[in-house]
């Protein structure tokens, strides 16, 4: 529930700010997921799907951040 509310606020805010970078939406969303996960602990026992989701989200996040860091370094 907390995650859904925060995600809605994030999406609305970025959209109203005319943010055009796709990775900004996705990476902040993933960040919100991990923060709410640490606080609320939605999966008491995450099981295989929960673990797969966490790995996939971490990979997407890492790729996006690496891309941005590379972009800055290459300038």
């Amino acid at each position: 529930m907390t995650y859904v509310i925060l995600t809605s606020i994030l999406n609305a805010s970025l959209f109203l700010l005319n943010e055009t970078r796709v990775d900004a939406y996705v990476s902040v969303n993933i960040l919100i997921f991990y923060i709410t996960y640490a606080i609320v602990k939605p999966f008491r026992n995450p099981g295989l799907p929960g673990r797969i989701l966490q790995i996939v989200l971490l990979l997407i996040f890492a790729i996006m951040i690496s891309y941005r860091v590379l972009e800055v370094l290459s300038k």
Partner: protein
Amino acid sequence: MDLKYFVLGLNITLISALLALYGLLINSSSLVGLFASNVILGLVIIAISFSTKEGLSNVLLNYSNILTRYATLTIEEFELLEAMPALVKKDDKIFLVLTNSKDFNHLEAGLGFNKNLPYLAIPVDDLMNDIEKLNEDSGHAIEAELGELLTEEFPVSKRVRVEYSNKTIKISLVEIDKRILDFYKYPLDPVTFLMMIILNRLTDKNLLLKNKSINIDQATYEFEVLERDETS
């Protein structure tokens, strides 16, 4: 798996993916970002749907309720309502015992009499064998291990606090799950049962429940550590 969450997550994912695709077609990065973010929301809800065990826990809750009521009736017949449960290791066997006496000799599994005093001994040797004895004999180590078990593996409360001395172990379950509060009034409630077995596994000590109290959503249990001489 919870079908409601699964269908909800799947709908959000599919609709968002389609709308993100539409965003790509009309070349609107904002739309793509917005709906890509919603695809992740859908995936999270799908993962949650696989992790909920509401149905199974309801079955077990009702089953525990029936067993607890039956056990209470038996305990009442044997005038053991005032007796506090003890967890005693005799030779290689471990029993959860309810008796008005402190003499734990000559125990046999089931209902019986020891020096004319009735007892109920439940064998628990093969329960939770995978919990290993702690290397460190401290309250902090017990709190860490017991906390993990009682909040993650067997989620009965949100937090666990342990005060440990050589003679007593005091455990506070903070923000206890409301569904198990009903069991509290019974002499042999499943939470006490579970906690005593875990404590015995972690410390390898014989235990006697001295006191238990409840305050809104916090339950406190005080166990006396029984000397091996007292039980042999």
